[in-house]
């Protein structure tokens, strides 16, 4: 591979990194359940693109396989299964209650992204690889922002998408730092992620059938009650 090609691929990878961070902000800024879901699908597409780019430049079949699994599972599979199993009113025109309003949330997300860059900077000193310099901080930022949206939102489906977005972040960092992980471990991890999504989906359906709502805020029967 020529130097110009390598540079082009690194440039494109940096572009997907920026877009992944942007979609993470998008998920924080959206109020509709369906909108959050759409941002997640787009983010998964960018993750697959990054896996393809790095897999191509390093000649790694594993990463190409991982990209294909990501598209099959997160872009097509999970949204389809959720739409089929969950009752329609969980999806349509549903506004999400948030503990913190959206402008402050975006500000916090920005701070988390900066914190991620700060946290990994001592690690980046050990390597010259430009792909790792891009993917590791953005991946960690994806995890932190996903964790934030999980905590701030009190509704089952967006919480689940938050977990999946955190996974996208971990994978995005992973394709750069562990690109030659044995295929079997990669496959096992990818299948595990799908299983997690299915189980949470089933649980969400049971909750909405039994309790009648999926607002996590209304599930507060169990806690330490003060003495009378």
């Amino acid at each position, binding site marked *: 591979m020529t130097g110009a090609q390598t540079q082009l691929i690194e440039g494109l990878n940096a572009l997907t990194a920026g877009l992944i961070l942007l979609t993470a902000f998008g998920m924080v800024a959206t109020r509709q359940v369906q909108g959050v879901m759409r941002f997640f699908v787009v983010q998964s597409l960018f993750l697959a693109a990054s896996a393809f780019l790095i897999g191509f430049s390093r000649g790694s079949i594993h990463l190409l396989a991982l990209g294909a699994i990501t598209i099959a599972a997160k872009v097509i599979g999970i949204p389809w299964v959720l739409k089929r199993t969950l009752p329609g009113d969980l999806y349509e025109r549903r506004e999400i209650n948030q503990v913190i309003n959206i402008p402050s949330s975006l500000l916090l997300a920005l701070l988390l992204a900066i914190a991620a860059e700060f946290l990994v900077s001592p690690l980046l000193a050990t390597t010259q690889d430009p792909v790792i310099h891009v993917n590791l901080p953005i991946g960690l930022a994806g995890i932190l922002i996903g964790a934030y949206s999980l905590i701030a939102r009190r509704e089952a489906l967006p919480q689940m998408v938050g977990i999946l977005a955190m996974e996208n972040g971990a994978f995005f960092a992973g394709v750069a730092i562990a690109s*030659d992980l044995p295929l079997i471990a990669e496959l096992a991890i990818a299948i595990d992620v799908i299983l997690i999504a299915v189980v949470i989906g089933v649980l969400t359906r049971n909750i909405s059938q039994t309790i009648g709502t999926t607002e*996590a805020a209304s599930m507060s029967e169990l806690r*330490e009650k*003060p003495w009378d």
Partner: protein
Amino acid sequence: MGLIVAIFLPLLAALLCWLKPLRKIAWGTTVICLSISFAFAVMTAGQVLRSGRAVAIAGWFEADGLSALVILLVSFVCTLAAIFAGGYMRHGSHQRERSWWFYCNYNLLVFALIVVPAFASPNLVWVGVELITLFATLLVGFESTPGALEAAWKMAILTIMGAPISLLGLLALYWAYHSSGGGTAETWQGLYAMASTMPPNLLKFSFLLVFVGFGAKVGLAPMHTWLPDAHSQAPTPICAVLSGIKTTVPLYAILRLFSVILASPEARIGNWMVVFGLFSVGIAALLLLQVRDYKRMFAFSTVEHMGIILVAAGFATHAGDYGAVSQMLNHSITKSLCFYAAGMVLLSLGTRQISEVRGLFRISPFAGGALLLSSLAIAGAPPFPIFLSEFSILSAGLRSGHNVAVAILAVLIVVAFIAIMRQVNGMLFGEPESTTPAEPVPLSCRTAVLVAAIPVVVLGVYIPGPVHSLLELAAQQLGGH
């Protein structure tokens, strides 16, 4: 070879329980398969004692002292819980017709619990720990009551949230291993060998993420909030497994990674482990003082014991490590007994409130006796095994110069002891509120309780030679000096 049988028999049992013609005898299948699996786990432990390690498939399934100890514990606790489940499913469950589904799921959980300590590669350990979370979530929500579903949801969100965090941590560990020339086949043994050449910053980063991610599954404070909910709402046999062993297995993974870090001369994190451990013990001791539900009480005591194990391992001396692994053993066997006792109280009285249980000795002497024995044992009264291991942890801390930590730990252990005994005292003695005779305790439950009580009573006064050697081997694996 014995290791392979011990791992895969529960998987076979899950398949058998799922087959339609065999659904009626799911309980028998489960108990028989798990008992055989336990026998093979004992054989594996024997092999480890003789030759130092048991290798079933190199690079995949291997066991050293620490793994053999955890596998043995998983097998023991899960087999007894399966026996207990027979009585529970017939008398206490609202979902009797779905009992085959319960046993199928239960066997899958046992498989995941056994396979984690047997995996030779950290990345596969992650997969195993996530499988544990999945099956445990399904079992917590098994009764499908609003309370059970709420508990299952909280558990799923808080513990699965840890999954991507620990995944990034383990991938960073792989990066460190690979970039310092370790090749692509990453195993715990290879990590020990390479630890001194791996970048210490990267090791610390990896440990931090794995500690947060798996710590949520262990129930370390401040990520413990799901634990009392899940442990109070789940079916009783599942509580015994969750509290007794499901928290121990992710802790095993944390301790394993900690021992890799100890093998690196520059990364020093032992004191942080002590601080976080003390924080968990402190939170648990305070919550124990004001708890009103006896199943939640035992759940908080689990948080306390996990913290104690963390503190002991954080001392990073051989004596501390020996205390940590014996505390692991003693906590598992004692805590499962606690939940059997609590489960029998629930079966015979139908309430979980401490204030509504009075004069238990008169209502049901068997359940009362079991509750008294197990509470004394879990609170750490002599001559029970937890007293011995807590004492050895405190003295190990003094010898390694952690005087302040030992003082705080001793105070918190005493607070927890007083809290537990005050609550249990009220339940056991006094006048019963109603005179209606309690439901008799089913035979399978009595059997499980009697067998579970044997090691709790015996290990306090006499530790057999092989058990001592296994603990010694496991402590060496933790790598304290």
